[in-house]
């Protein structure tokens, strides 16, 4: 939305996000327990993550490295000294009944991330990003199975202590689609950094604040004053677990609030729960007083001085930059460049083949053929990481004109993915090797000699006749000749 289109009386939607991402580390943030997911409850636990009396936290440096990488990627500042605080509240999934988190001295401050929505680029301000520990998880059993209807609740502490990064944006989004684009871009960036696994259950959790303000509060640069933001009642929508879910939840919430305002009703300031299965948000608790978490410094962890790590820890080229470079370096269109940088693994593989073969051919084979076939099988490139050498060989065969594109796609690639065979094996077994030129020429001469009627028809100007002859040649060569080549050879002979 641009400033010119907003006027007094228009309703403008304002959205801010708090994104919790689980960081990919071998061990938990304050103890040596594995973070790997397991079905057996309460097995990845120790005195520290269970909050046993006397246990003390020790900071996992890998989690700090991940935070520094994220800080670099979002161009945030990393202060000389950062600290941990205790956030005090009682909840059954919280082993110590306080969470070790960061408060007024977070590790990443004042960052930004660029997104593109419908071709328009926007920069989203990231106010802060901080490290904290994940609580355990609750399972409500019996009764209605809900949080207030269950007969009893089980607690699983396997998740307790998994490192989290909480990323807080400014209220910069004006549409649900922008929020989704941001989350998708953020996920992509985090995966590029190797600090996040989107496939992991519960690895992304979003709380979104949404309010509606009058258009007159929007200044010429599309910004809205703090006073107007604070005056507007906002809802906090919880339980969002994907970028798609975020768009749906926020679109629903936006409509709900706009309808209320248009009917002259007041929007309650409240926390709402996104019910994914019903596609609606429901009120959790209304008119709640501001929670008092009684933050204070965590004396068990000394202050952290890691600002110099920013210069010591390298990060890979990020998706936006790589997309731009692909467009220039390999002369790719926007869509192809976008597809080819969607994950780091895809981009790395593309560059691997584009360096060796024709970049256009490589783009077709990676973006269309390979990703298409993977998508059809509901697979990711990471699922076939061990087969990429074989795909490389297949592209080599096509590039070297040793098999037809059609055969490569329909027979070889599918066979490779479905049966795990090697491309050369398949070509050999199916006799797909392109027939030698002499053999094709011989077949062309034979076809002309054996089909005088078709030759006469062709000379009389009948368009379909040549196709009949091509079919004859293809039959003689067992389909291994290139139909285009055959067509050309026939025309030469018949002139």
């Amino acid at each position, binding site marked *: 939305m641009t400033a010119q289109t907003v006027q007094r009386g228009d309703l403008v939607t304002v959205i801010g996000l708090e994104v919790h991402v689980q960081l990919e580390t071998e061990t938990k943030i304050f103890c040596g327990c594995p973070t790997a997911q397991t079905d057996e409850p309460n097995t990845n636990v120790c*005195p520290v993550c*269970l*909050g*046993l*009396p*006397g*246990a*003390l*936290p*020790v*900071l996992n440096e890998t989690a700090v490295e991940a935070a520094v990488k994220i800080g670099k990627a979002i161009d945030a500042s990393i202060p000389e000294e950062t600290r941990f605080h*205790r956030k*005090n509240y*009682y909840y*059954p999934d919280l*082993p*110590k*009944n*306080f969470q070790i988190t960061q408060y007024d001295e977070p590790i990443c401050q004042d960052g930004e991330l660029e997104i593109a929505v419908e071709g328009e680029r926007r920069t989203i301000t990231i106010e802060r990003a901080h490290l904290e520990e994940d609580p355990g998880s609750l399972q409500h059993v019996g009764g209605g199975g809900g949080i207030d209807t269950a007969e009893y*609740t089980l*607690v699983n502490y396997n998740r307790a202590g998994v490192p989290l990064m909480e990323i807080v944006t400014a209220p910069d989004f004006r549409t649900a689609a922008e929020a989704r684009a941001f989350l998708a871009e953020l996920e992509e960036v985090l995966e590029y950094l190797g600090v996040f696994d989107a496939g992991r259950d519960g690895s992304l959790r979003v709380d979104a604040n949404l309010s509606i303000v009058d258009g007159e509060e929007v200044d010429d640069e599309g910004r809205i004053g703090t006073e107007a933001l604070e005056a507007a009642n906002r809802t906090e929508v919880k339980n969002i677990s994907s970028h798609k879910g975020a768009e749906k939840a926020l679109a629903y919430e936006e409509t709900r609030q706009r309808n209320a305002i248009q009917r002259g009703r007041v929007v309650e300031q409240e926390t709402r729960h996104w019910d994914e299965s019903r596609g609606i948000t429901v009120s959790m608790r209304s008119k709640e007083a*501001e929670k*008092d978490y*009684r933050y*204070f410094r965590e*004396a*068990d*962890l*000394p202050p952290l001085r890691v600002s110099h790590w920013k210069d010591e820890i390298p990060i890979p080229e990020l998706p936006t930059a790589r997309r731009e470079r692909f467009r220039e370096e390999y002369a790719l269109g926007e869509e192809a460049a976008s597809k080819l940088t969607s994950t780091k693994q895809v981009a790395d593989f593309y560059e691997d083949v584009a360096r060796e073969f024709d970049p256009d051919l490589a783009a077709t084979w990676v973006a269309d053929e390979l990703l298409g076939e993977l998508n059809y099988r509901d697979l990711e490139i990471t699922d076939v990481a061990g087969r990429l050498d074989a795909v490389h060989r297949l592209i080599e065969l096509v590039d070297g004109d040793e098999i037809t594109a059609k055969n490569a796609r329909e027979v070889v690639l599918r066979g490779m993915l479905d049966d795990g065979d090697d491309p050369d094996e398949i070509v050999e077994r199916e006799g797909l090797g392109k027939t030698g030129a002499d053999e094709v020429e011989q077949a062309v001469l034979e076809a002309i000699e054996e089909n005088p009627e078709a030759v006469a028809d062709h000379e009389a100007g009948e368009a379909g006749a040549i196709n009949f002859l091509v079919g004859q040649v293809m039959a003689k060569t067992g389909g291994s000749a290139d139909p285009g080549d055959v067509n050309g050879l026939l025309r030469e002979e018949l002139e």
Partner: protein
Amino acid sequence: MSVNAFITETELEGTDEGPLSGRTVAVKDNISTAGVRTTCGSKMLAEYVPPYDATVVERLKAAGATIVGKTNMDEFGMGTTTETSHFGSTDNPAAPGHVPGGSSGGSAAAVAAGEADLALGSDTGGSIRCPAAFCGVVGIKPTYGLVSRYGLVAYGNSLEQIGPFAQTVEDAAALLDVIAGPDERDATTREAPDGEGTYADAADGDVDGLSVGIPTELLEGADQGVIDAFEETVETLESAGATTREVCLPSVGHAVSAYYVIAMSEASSNLARFDGVRYGHSSDAGGNWNDAFGRTRAEGFGDEVKRRILLGTYALSAGYHDKYYKKAQDARAWVTRDFDEAFDEVDVLASPTMPVPPFELGESLDDPLQLYLADANTVPVNLANLPAISVPAGETNGLPVGVQFIGPAFGERRIVRTASAL
């Protein structure tokens, strides 16, 4: 006759060979012992058996010590008399009918009664030095960060250290040698700067040329009998070649207030984990989790613990945080500065450990504020993270008196040396 020094008697043998082979050690019951219940003197943890050993317990075992029991204490370390224990009070072996001091009263009493050669206590605001003084034994509160707190059930985690009790300065120092040193499981431990020899080696009684500062503020309001005993101690040091002079610590008048705000604030958070879900007392009354937590805590904690949790919660609350907690942190910084300046002028500081001799059992229970003020000389040391030792200094009316020597950070050898001259 037993003085009720132990909550749980046991016999945990260490390795055969080590500096503490053949020595018996009593361990305060807020220090985790694998397989032996660790109650913190509370109904809340009356049946709690830790699955792991505190780092200091591992070190005791590795040094060949035999752990003979877990000692009585004020509930979660909150007290000056050991009378807030859920397991009854402990009598003072050196002054029967009187309290042993607290909160590590059981550890001091076990050593004074000869029920253990050595003991470990913990000191958040004087909980080693007070019972050492009251029971006529030696106790050391180490520099914050010298001894691992891993396995010590937290009360005021920015203030407390585990430390030794013994009949002699040399024995106490030898036990400190065993438990001191960095621990990868406690991120606040630090490597002490190199010193000459062990802490026990420093107990050579050589105070010739040592300058001793006497903070006048720490004599104000003290019992006359205590002052007399203290002055005799000062004369002993002077006759051994030490020089003495008065110094000023203007900030210590605020130390008790600051200490209690900080310790209670931390306690309100540290003790939040006792909710009956994973371990410890659990109310069998039904209701939702919030009711269950509330009942469990109402039943499991004693009055003094509840008082401190409530006050600490209040001090950290929005609207009061700046008025109490933040102000207390400012006072803490001020106390630290005062000590730093004093150590520019003198080598060690000396004061009575407690301004009064031991109370009679039951005497002080009704007036918490009076009791808090009795910590005036011990709490500044914790606020400043410094080491201090309490050594016996005679008697007043047949009741033990202790003096305290305070050193600069990691100045353990210096205070051991001073104390060994008595």
